[in-house]
């Protein structure tokens, strides 16, 4: 086994351990550790990705001395490594971009705790990405949930606490259902390791035994993860949580946390149940319908909103709807589109959140649209970045949003029954996206406006500006040279099977 194969394990361990370390470090050191860890994990994931692209095969890694059905395992393929790399990039940029606001929003003595949370979140995300064991997944889902909750409430204003409570309640419902589903699944198959469960499930399907429990278990797990990733009817906690937490938290929450659950769902679909079997259930139809509803209603709520952060948050609901629509199509192409959209949405949404903070900063801290008038002139970088993000969300070519839209539409065309609905909703949702994002973009450029707010130049916020630039570049890379990425996703999904 090559040394590189240790990297997934190292990534998880480093980030876990750094969490522990940060608990005794002062704030600055904690920050440094945090950055270094994220960067190191990113580099490792990158190397791993290159390695995997070279070998073209996934590998499993024993966590301990015991082989597959007895010991824990993690597994790395192209998709996992790519996701890990991507998550690190986004997390690093989000942290850097929101760093300067952290001081305003969080008690100073608790800054190092914040970095603990981030580290643990990273580790749990990595574990979710790499794990090959359902129960491990459950444990890390909990870490993910709790640290996400911590990220929400670390800025202690009433709204965030309330949002955190709501978030926790929904999450716990979700975990409960997930765990119950998992237990049933375990009862049926006697395994907790994904590959073994898959084999058993295939056998069960063949023999025709335990059909109802099987379906129910899959459904429970799906619903659990859907609730956790804020699919449409379960999104009530989301706007407050994203809208009022610190900016880095919001960026990370929207672009990574929910994506972690979704990625887990993909793994379950492919590695636990089996893609074909999953597609033969009616669950995908449900997902499809809720995805479509989410696309519409998320956007509608966003249109009604007059708080920029909450608007972006609602937009997340819509975007998650896109992803589930892709699942619901039940084809390989739909899945590829969804995975690509995970990337694209993560890149865009964090960009939007971080740009939005730049805009509110020059508007007296208010996030109401009326105060944001002309903010694009006061903070040029943030204005440009917000515009770019919006365009990507609307699906203008050159940006990543366009490609995901393209992939979704192409996938939709191949599905007879769902084609028209998907296409039309895609169109309508684009229109709605255009409405609320462009409304904002025009608003921030509306007048040179109220001079009572100060202008911010590049010098005042170098880091922020550079981060925004990176985000834009990331977006454009995703949008322009999407072919290799799509190929990678396809390969990765093929490795899942």
């Amino acid at each position, binding site marked *: *086994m090559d040394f590189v*194969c*240790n990297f997934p*394990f190292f990534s998880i*361990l480093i980030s*876990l*351990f750094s*969490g*522990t*370390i940060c*608990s*005794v470090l002062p704030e600055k050191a904690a920050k440094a550790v945090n950055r270094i860890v994220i960067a190191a994990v990113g580099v490792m994931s990158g190397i791993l990705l290159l390695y995997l692209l070279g070998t073209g095969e996934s590998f499993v*890694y*024993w*966590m*301990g*001395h*015991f082989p597959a*059905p*007895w*010991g*824990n395992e*993690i597994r790395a393929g192209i998709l996992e490594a790519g996701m890990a790399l991507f998550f690190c990039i986004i997390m690093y940029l989000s942290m850097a971009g929101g760093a300067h606001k952290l001081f305003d929003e969080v*008690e*100073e*003595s*608790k800054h190092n*705790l*914040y970095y*603990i*949370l981030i580290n*643990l979140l990273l580790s*749990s995300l990595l*574990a979710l990405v790499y794990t090959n*064991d359902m*129960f*491990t997944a459950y*444990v*890390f889902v*909990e*870490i993910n949930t*709790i*640290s996400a909750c*911590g990220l929400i*409430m670390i800025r202690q204003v009433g709204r965030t*606490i309330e949002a955190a409570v709501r978030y926790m309640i929904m999450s716990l419902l979700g975990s409960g259902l997930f765990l119950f589903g998992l237990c*049933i699944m375990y*009862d*049926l*198959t*006697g*395994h907790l390791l994904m590959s073994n469960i898959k084999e058993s499930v295939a056998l069960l399907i063949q023999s025709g035994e*335990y059909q*109802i*429990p099987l379906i*129910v*278990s899959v459904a429970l797990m799906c619903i659990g993860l859907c609730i956790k990733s804020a699919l449409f009817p379960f999104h009530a906690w989301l706007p407050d949580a994203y809208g009022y937490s610190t900016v880095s938290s919001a960026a990370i929450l929207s672009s990574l946390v929910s994506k972690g659950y979704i990625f887990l769902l993909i793994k379950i679909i492919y590695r636990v149940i089996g893609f074909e079997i999953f597609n033969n259930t009616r669950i995908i139809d449900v997902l499809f319908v809720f995805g479509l509803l989410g696309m519409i209603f998320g956007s509608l709520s966003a249109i009604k909103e*007059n708080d920029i952060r909450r608007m972006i948050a609602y937009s997340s609901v819509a975007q998650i709807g896109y992803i589930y629509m892709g699942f619901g199509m039940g084809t390989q192409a739909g899945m590829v589109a969804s995975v690509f959209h995970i990337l694209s949405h993560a890149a865009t949404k964090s960009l939007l959140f971080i740009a939005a903070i730049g805009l509110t900063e020059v508007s007296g801290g208010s996030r*109401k*649209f009326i105060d944001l008038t002309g903010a694009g002139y006061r903070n040029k970088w943030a204005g440009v970045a917000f515009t770019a993000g919006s365009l990507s969300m609307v699906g203008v070519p050159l940006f990543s949003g366009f490609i995901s839209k393209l992939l979704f539409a192409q996938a939709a065309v191949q599905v007879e029954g769902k084609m028209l609905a998907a296409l039309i909703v895609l169109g309508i949702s684009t229109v709605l996206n255009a409405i609320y994002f462009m409304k904002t973009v025009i608003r921030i450029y509306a007048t040179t406006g109220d001079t009572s707010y100060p202008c911010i130049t590049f010098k005042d916020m170098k880091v922020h500006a550079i981060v925004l630039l990176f985000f834009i570049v990331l977006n454009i890379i995703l949008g322009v040279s999407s072919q290799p990425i799509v190929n990678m996703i396809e390969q990765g999904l093929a490795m899942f099977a």
Partner: protein
Amino acid sequence: MSKRKPAEEYHKTFAFHFFSWLQGEKDPYLGNVEMKPQEEYVIDPEMQLRHEKEHDAILDKVYDMAHNRELRLFHRLYQATSILFCLFLMALLLVTISHLPATGAAVKPVNNEVAARYIESGLEETGAVNIVAGMILDYRAFDTLGESHVLFVATITVLIMLRLDKNKKGEPNPLTRDMNPNDRIYEPKNDAILQLVASFLVPIIIIFGIYIILNGHLGPGGGFSGGAVIGAGLILYLNAFGFSKTERFFTEKTYKWICFFSLSFYCLAKSYSFYTGANHLHSIIPKGTPGAILSSGLILPLNIAVGLVVACTMYAFYAMFRKGGF
């Protein structure tokens, strides 16, 4: 043409229109084109402002539970659907359960080669008499590592939420002032009975907890349960003697470092074991004799570490809940 109708009325009749058209008096332009200039589109900025403010106000009103009938209706609806959903879920689960393999049967999917190996070779491979302890701390140690971090992250969030820090200038948090007098209510200054009982119960409890921890690999018990027992002992002590006594040996710093060292040890030890396992290297940790107290490799130290963490955490939770600090 009879002129009995008054002029105005006549002007409305069809006949009038017809004849005026016939005579060429009806004009396609008159009064239709360019007669009225359109108003320039002007929006009063103040109006706009007020509009948006009103929008906010409406939003507020929408969320005003007490006075919003729609919301109340929605609430009812929500409750009804929730109950229905729960009933449905229950029915679904019951149906599912009725299809599950029978409880207590020896032959069912759960009892497969996995469980068999744990039981048959667990003693040999892990050195733990307690198969469950061997399983969770060796076979499936990664889960347990995660689990301890769940606890850790939960403590961190509780700290974030409840710890009342001094601000930059060193002034105590304003909430501390409210909390402290509040805390007095719970603090029986000189409750002799309690103190007496505690003074001989606490050591027993703590010793019992230590026993549980140390015997984790040999019998029922382990780090978590033992730690919880120790935590309970500490809490009893705190209740009997107050913070001033406990602060002598247990402060935040103590807690921090204990947690740090325990978890670091856990992490590093497990990392070593994982790394060696994955790379098929030989682990230098001896298994020892099954059944002896110093046996079963890492399980004992790990149990101790977990126990420490859990004990401290339990105490920390209590302290936090009670007054936001140690």
